[in-house]
C-alpha cells in the first residue's frame, strides 16, 4: 500500500499545483463552466483514491465538495462567492492533509465539520466560513512540506535509457575485443576495466527501474470483482496476496489481460449464485484468491476460486460436438489432458454466452499470451469445489538464459527452460534410427522423434549425421522431442526482444537477440518447431502407444545380477526386489514344511535354489508381488544392469525361466512368476498387514513422511490407481476433507488428516499427532482386523 500512497500524494500534489491557477480564475468568475469541471474532476479523483486507500477524512471532505460542485454542474445551484470560498477551504484542507500524510504530522480535525457545513446553501454561514477559512491558511503555513524522493517518469524515457545502456554495453564489448586483439598497455586495460564495471552497474540499476510491484496489476481487481459480482448477482470475497512481488513493467502489461480474463471467468463461470452455493452446502460468499510469489527466476501467479470447477467430461462432450476432438481420441485421454481442452481454441463451457465471458475466445488466448512471453499456464480443477489456475512467467521479458547452437552454419538460441538434456549421437546411450521415413532417436530406451534443425530450416547441413548433437526438448504444453543440431556453442544470458510479426508468422521463432558479436540471432520456439514439424499431433499418439508397448515388452528393464547359493550367476528384475538384506540364521527355521524367515514380527517363506548351507548369516532378497512377500537367499550381489528380457526359454517350468547373455556370460533368469506361485501354493496367507490406501496425490509429505510411519505401524501403504487399491482396508486422506475419497470396497473407513492442530476432531486428525493417528487407525480398522 505504501507505494500507492506515495503515488497518491505525488499525484494529488501535482494536480493541486496545476489547479491553483484554475482556482483563482474560478474565484474571479464562479460561473465559468470549464474551471468548474476541472475542479470537480480533481475532488472526484481524490474522493475515489481516498476510498480505495482508506483515508476516511479526506474522503469525507472531498465527497462534500464533490456533492456541491455536482449541484453546480447540474445547475441545481448557482455558484456564489460563499460557495467558492467554502470549496477553496476544502481544497486547501486537502492539500494540508496530503502534506501531513507524507510528513506523518497530524492535522486537527475539529473544524472539518465546519468546513463541510460551510458548503451548505444559505448565506447564514458566511461569517462562520470566513472565520474558519482564515485559520486554515495559518495552519497550512506551519505544516512543513516534506521533500519528495520520488519522481514520475514516462516509460518511453526509461525505454530510451535502457536502449542507450544496451548500446553502451555492446560498444564496450566491441572495444574489449579490439583491446584484447591489439594487446594494449595494462594501464589502459585497468582504466577500461573500471569503465566496464561502471557500465555493468549502470545496466543493473536501469534494469531495476523497469521492475514494478505486481500490486499495480492487482489494484484493479477489487473494483472489477465488485462490479462483476454486482452485475451477476453473485457474492464474492476477494483475497489478494503477494502484491509486493516485483516484475518487469512490460511483463505486468503482458499478463494484465490474461489475469483479467481468468478473474472474469472465475466469477462468471466458476462461482455459483448464492442460492446454488447454499444448496451445495457452501457459504453464500464465494471466495477468490489471487496471489503472486517469486520462485527462482519465475513469478507464479495463482487464481483460486471455490466455485463449481470445470467438468472435464463436459469439456470433452463439447469438444466432440464442436469437432475439435474425435470420440476415439477422447477415449485415450487422461483426466489432465481432458482438463487441458479448456485451452483449445473455439471452446467455451458457458451454457450461455454472457457479456462478461463465454464467447469461446478466452482460455486459448490466455494460454497463447502467457506462452508468448515464455510462461506456462496450469489448471487444476475439482468438480464442485473449485478451480486453480496458475500462470508461471519469467521475471523479466528481456533476459532469457539460453543455449546457443549452430545449424547450417548459422547460430540460433534455444531457451534453456525447455532443454532437458544434451546428448551426442555418437555416444553409446543414443541410437539414431528411422521409423517410416521419420528420424527417431533411442536414448536409454526412450524413443523420441527427431527434428534435424538444418534441413528443417531449409539450410544446408554442414556435418555428417553421426556428428550431430541431440538437444532433448520439453516444450511447454508439448511432448519431448530431440532437436538435432550441428554444434552446441555456449550458455548465454540473452537480451531477447520480440521479433517482427513477419518473423513470428512462421511459428518457429520466439524473438531476436543481439549477442556480443553484434550479429543478430534468432531465439527458437521449441513448441513452434514441434508443431511446424508435425510431431506434436499424430506422432505423439504413436509415441505413447510405442511407449506402452515398450513397457509391456519390458525392454531393457533394470535387472539385478547375483550369485546364487549354488555359485551360478542369476538375474531377476529389480522392480520385484524390495530390498536386499543380511539376516541372522537364528531368524530362519524349518517350520510347517518349509524354510521360513521370521522378522519384524512376520513370517515369510524363505526360498532358495538349494538347501541352505550352514552359516551365521544369509543374504536375502526381499521380494514382493504387491500382496505377498517372500525372501530368496543368495550368495552375493553382482551388479545391476539394464537388460533385454529376450532369452532362451527353459525346457521345463521351474525356478529358472531361461538363460540370457549378459556381457557375454550366460546368466540364468529367475522365473519370478513361478517363485511367487510356489510360495503361494504352500498356502502362505497373504500378508497379515492391513492395507492402507493413502489418497494424497503426489503430496511429498504423504510419500516421504507419512508412509514410513504407517508402515512402521504395521500397515501396508498403497496409492490410488495402483493394483489392489480397491481392496484397501482403510483410506487415509491428507486434504482436510475437500475431496471425495477414492472408490474402494464397501464400508471402508476413511480417516482424514489436517495440517492445523486446532482443527482436529474425531475424524480429522492433526497430521503430526502420531499416537492419535495410529490409535484412530487401530479403532477404525478393528472390525476388519477381526474379519481377517
Amino acid at each position: 500500500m505504501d507505494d500507492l500512497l506515495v503515488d497518491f500524494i505525488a499525484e494529488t500534489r501535482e494536480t493541486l499545483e496545476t489547479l491553483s491557477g484554475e482556482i483563482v480564475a474560478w474565484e474571479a468568475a464562479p460561473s465559468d463552466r470549464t474551471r468548474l469541471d476541472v475542479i470537480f474532476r480533481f475532488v472526484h479523483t481524490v474522493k475515489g483514491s481516498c476510498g480505495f486507500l482508506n483515508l476516511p477524512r479526506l474522503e469525507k471532505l472531498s465527497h462534500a465538495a464533490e456533492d456541491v460542485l455536482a449541484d453546480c454542474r447540474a445547475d441545481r445551484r448557482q455558484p456564489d462567492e460563499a460557495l467558492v470560498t467554502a470549496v477553496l477551504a476544502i481544497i486547501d484542507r486537502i492539500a494540508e492533509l496530503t502534506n501531513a500524510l507524507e510528513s506523518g504530522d497530524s492535522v486537527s480535525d475539529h473544524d472539518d465539520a465546519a468546513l463541510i457545513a460551510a458548503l451548505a446553501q444559505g448565506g447564514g454561514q458566511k461569517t462562520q466560513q470566513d472565520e474558519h477559512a482564515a485559520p486554515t491558511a495559518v495552519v497550512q503555513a506551519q505544516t512543513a512540506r516534506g521533500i519528495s524522493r520520488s519522481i514520475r517518469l514516462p516509460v518511453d524515457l526509461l525505454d530510451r535509457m535502457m536502449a542507450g545502456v544496451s548500446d553502451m554495453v555492446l560498444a564496450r564489448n566491441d572495444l574489449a575485443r579490439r583491446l584484447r586483439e591489439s594487446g594494449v598497455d595494462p594501464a589502459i586495460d585497468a582504466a577500461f576495466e573500471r569503465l566496464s564495471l561502471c557500465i555493468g552497474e549502470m545496466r543493473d540499476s536501469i534494469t531495476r527501474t523497469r521492475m514494478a510491484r505486481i500490486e499495480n496489476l492487482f489494484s484493479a481487481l477489487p473494483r472489477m470483482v465488485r462490479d462483476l459480482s454486482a452485475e451477476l448477482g453473485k457474492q464474492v470475497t476477494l483475497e489478494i496476496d503477494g502484491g509486493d512481488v516485483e516484475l518487469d513493467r512490460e511483463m505486468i502489461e503482458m499478463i494484465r489481460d490474461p489475469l483479467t480474463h481468468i478473474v472474469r471467468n472465475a466469477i462468471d463461470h466458476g462461482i455459483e449464485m448464492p442460492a446454488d452455493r447454499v444448496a451445495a452446502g457452501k457459504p453464500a460468499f464465494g471466495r477468490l484468491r489471487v496471489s503472486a510469489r517469486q520462485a527462482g527466476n519465475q513469478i507464479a501467479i495463482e487464481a483460486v476460486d471455490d466455485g463449481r470447477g470445470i467438468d472435464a467430461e463436459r469439456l470433452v462432450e463439447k469438444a466432440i460436438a464442436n469437432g475439435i476432438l474425435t470420440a476415439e481420441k477422447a477415449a485415450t485421454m487422461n483426466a489432465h489432458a481432458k482438463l487441458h481442452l479448456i485451452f483449445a481454441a473455439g471452446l467455451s463451457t458457458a451454457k450461455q454466452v454472457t457479456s462478461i465471458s463465454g464467447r469461446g475466445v478466452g482460455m486459448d488466448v490466455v494460454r497463447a499470451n502467457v506462452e508468448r512471453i515464455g510462461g506456462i499456464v496450469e489448471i487444476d480443477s475439482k468438480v464442485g469445489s473449485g478451480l486453480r489456475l496458475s500462470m508461471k512467467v519469467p521475471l523479466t521479458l528481456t533476459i532469457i538464459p539460453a543455449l546457443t547452437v549452430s545449424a547450417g552454419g548459422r547460430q540460433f538460441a534455444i531457451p534453456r527452460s525447455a532443454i532437458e538434456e544434451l546428448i551426442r549421437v555418437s555416444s553409446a546411450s543414443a541410437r539414431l534410427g528411422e521409423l517410416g521415413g521419420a528420424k527417431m532417436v533411442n536414448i536409454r530406451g526412450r524413443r523420441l522423434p527427431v527434428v534435424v534443425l538444418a534441413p528443417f530450416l531449409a539450410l544446408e547441413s554442414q556435418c555428417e549425421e553421426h556428428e550431430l548433437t541431440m538437444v532433448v526438448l520439453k516444450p511447454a504444453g508439448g511432448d519431448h522431442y530431440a532437436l538435432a543440431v550441428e554444434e552446441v556453442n555456449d550458455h548465454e544470458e540473452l537480451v531477447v526482444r520480440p521479433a517482427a510479426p513477419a518473423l513470428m508468422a512462421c511459428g518457429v521463432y520466439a524473438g531476436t537477440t543481439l549477442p556480443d558479436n553484434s550479429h543478430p540471432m534468432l531465439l527458437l520456439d521449441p513448441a513452434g518447431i514441434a508443431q511446424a514439424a508435425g510431431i506434436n499431433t499424430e506422432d505423439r499418439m504413436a509415441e505413447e502407444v510405442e511407449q506402452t508397448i515398450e513397457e509391456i515388452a519390458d525392454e531393457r528393464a533394470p535387472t539385478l545380477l547375483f550369485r546364487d547359493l549354488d555359485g551360478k550367476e542369476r538375474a531377476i528384475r529389480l522392480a520385484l526386489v524390495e530390498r536386499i538384506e543380511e539376516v541372522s540364521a537364528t531368524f530362519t527355521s524349518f517350520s510347517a514344511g518349509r524354510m521360513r524367515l521370521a522378522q519384524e514380527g512376520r513370517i515369510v517363506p524363505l526360498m532358495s535354489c538349494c538347501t541352505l548351507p550352514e552359516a551365521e548369516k544369509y543374504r536375502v532378497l526381499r521380494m514382493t508381488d504387491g500382496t505377498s512377500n517372500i525372501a530368496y537367499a543368495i550368495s552375493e550381489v553382482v551388479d545391476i544392469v539394464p537388460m533385454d528380457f529376450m532369452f532362451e526359454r527353459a525346457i521345463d517350468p521351474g525356478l529358472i525361466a531361461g538363460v540370457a547373455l549378459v556381457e557375454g556370460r550366460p546368466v540364468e533368469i529367475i522365473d519370478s512368476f513361478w517363485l511367487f506361485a510356489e510360495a503361494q501354493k504352500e498356502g502362505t496367507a497373504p500378508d497379515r498387514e492391513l492395507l492402507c490406501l493413502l489418497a494424497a496425490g503426489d503430496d511429498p509429505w504423504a510419500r516421504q513422511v507419512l508412509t514410513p510411519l504407517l508402515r512402521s505401524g504395521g500397515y501396508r501403504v498403497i496409492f490410488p490407481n495402483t493394483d489392489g487399491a480397491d481392496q484397501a482396508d482403510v483410506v487415509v486422506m491428507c486434504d482436510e476433507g475437500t475431496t471425495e475419497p477414492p472408490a474402494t470396497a464397501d464400508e471402508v473407513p476413511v480417516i482424514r488428516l489436517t495440517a492445523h492442530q486446532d482443527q482436529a476432531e474425531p475424524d480429522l486428525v492433526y497430521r503430526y499427532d502420531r499416537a492419535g493417528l495410529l490409535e484412530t487407525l487401530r479403532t477404525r480398522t478393528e472390525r476388519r482386523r477381526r474379519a481377517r
Partner: protein
Amino acid sequence: MNHLYLIVTIAGHRVALPAATVESVVEIDGIEPVPLVAPHVAGLFALRSRVMTVIDSAAAVGAGRFDWQGQAEAVIANCDGHGYAILVENVDDVVEPGVPVTQTRAVMSPGWARVSCGTIEVDGDALLVVDPDALVSINSFAKAA
C-alpha cells in the same frame, strides 16, 4: 499543413514514403538471413543495439528480388513497435508537395496496389505514396503470393 515525403526508388520506381514514419536512412551491410520466412523478409540487421528486420522492398511489391550487392541503403521505419530496415535502391530527396494526396486512378499491379495509399505530384511527376506498414506486414505478402 502538408506532410513531408521521402522519395526513394523501389523496384525501379520512384515512390514517396511519408517522412513521419521514417526514422533515418542508413547504409547497411551484412544481413543475417532468416530461414523459413516470407520472401519479403531479407533477414536481420543490427543497428547499434537494436535488431532490425530487413525488408526486401522489391519482393514486398511482388517485383522479384532486391539486387543485393553486399551493401545497400535502407530506410529505418518503426511500425507497430518493431524496427524495420526497408531496402531501397536509391534515396532521392525529401519533398513537401503542394497538393494533398489524391487517389490513384491508374490500374496498378496487385503488388503495388497493396502497398500504396495514393498519389502525390512532385515536379510534375505523379509518385505513388507507399505505406511502410503495408510494406512490412506479413499480410501484404500473403495476399500477393
